[in-house]
């Protein structure tokens, strides 16, 4: 096998590994999101909702629905968490958080953690986090 073939095979293996890892991660996030979506009450008919922790510092809320004109609409809200504040962006635009929203968000995170830990990863938390 020539060096070119060797490099091509290595790249193919690397691509497959990255794709597998990405699918693995997506599957877990999808399962987390199914739990997260239930934390804000009943989901209206025709609405798809996601709420999940994307990574250590980022939480995502997403809803989509089909409007009266048959067009799919969506609202994607991202919360970037910093040590002293939380920056909210909705469909890419920075938005202020209301006191009520902050309270709801924090409550949702509090509920999300033990449920996801137990139901997705099989981890029972210490009482302080339940």
């Amino acid at each position, binding site marked *: 096998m020539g060096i070119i073939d060797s490099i091509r095979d290595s790249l193919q293996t690397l691509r497959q590994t990255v794709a597998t890892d990405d699918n693995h991660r997506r599957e877990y996030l999808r399962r987390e999101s199914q739990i997260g979506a239930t934390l804000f009450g009943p989901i209206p008919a025709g609405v798809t909702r996601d709420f999940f922790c994307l990574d250590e510092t980022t939480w995502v809320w997403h809803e989509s629905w089909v409007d009266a004109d048959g067009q799919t609409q969506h609202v994607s809200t991202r919360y970037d968490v910093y040590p002293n504040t939380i*920056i909210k962006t909705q469909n890419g635009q920075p938005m202020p958080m209301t006191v009520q929203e*902050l309270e709801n968000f924090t409550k949702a995170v*509090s509920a999300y953690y033990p449920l996801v830990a137990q139901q997705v990863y099989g981890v029972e938390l210490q009482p302080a986090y339940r």
Partner: protein
Amino acid sequence: MSSPDVLDPEAFSSDSDLAGTKQEIDRVFAEITGAIDPDRLAIAEELASDSRFVLEIGAHLRNIRYNTAGFDTPGTSQLPIGFDRAMRGGQ
């Protein structure tokens, strides 16, 4: 008027320039978070407290994901590598 060269340490050499820059950053930051409105100053304190709590939860989740499912290792954050650590005083 030309823009200062941000790579030139002399470009923002005076304390007043630095203070002005910091004030502008604080103002924009406060505006985004809604804290600039005097009626909503209370949310700033709540934000600070809640954000630390949410960060702690995020860190715990990352550890659980890594230890049980083998993903979400340190460095998978959307932030530039080292940014979040630097924000926490390099811990």
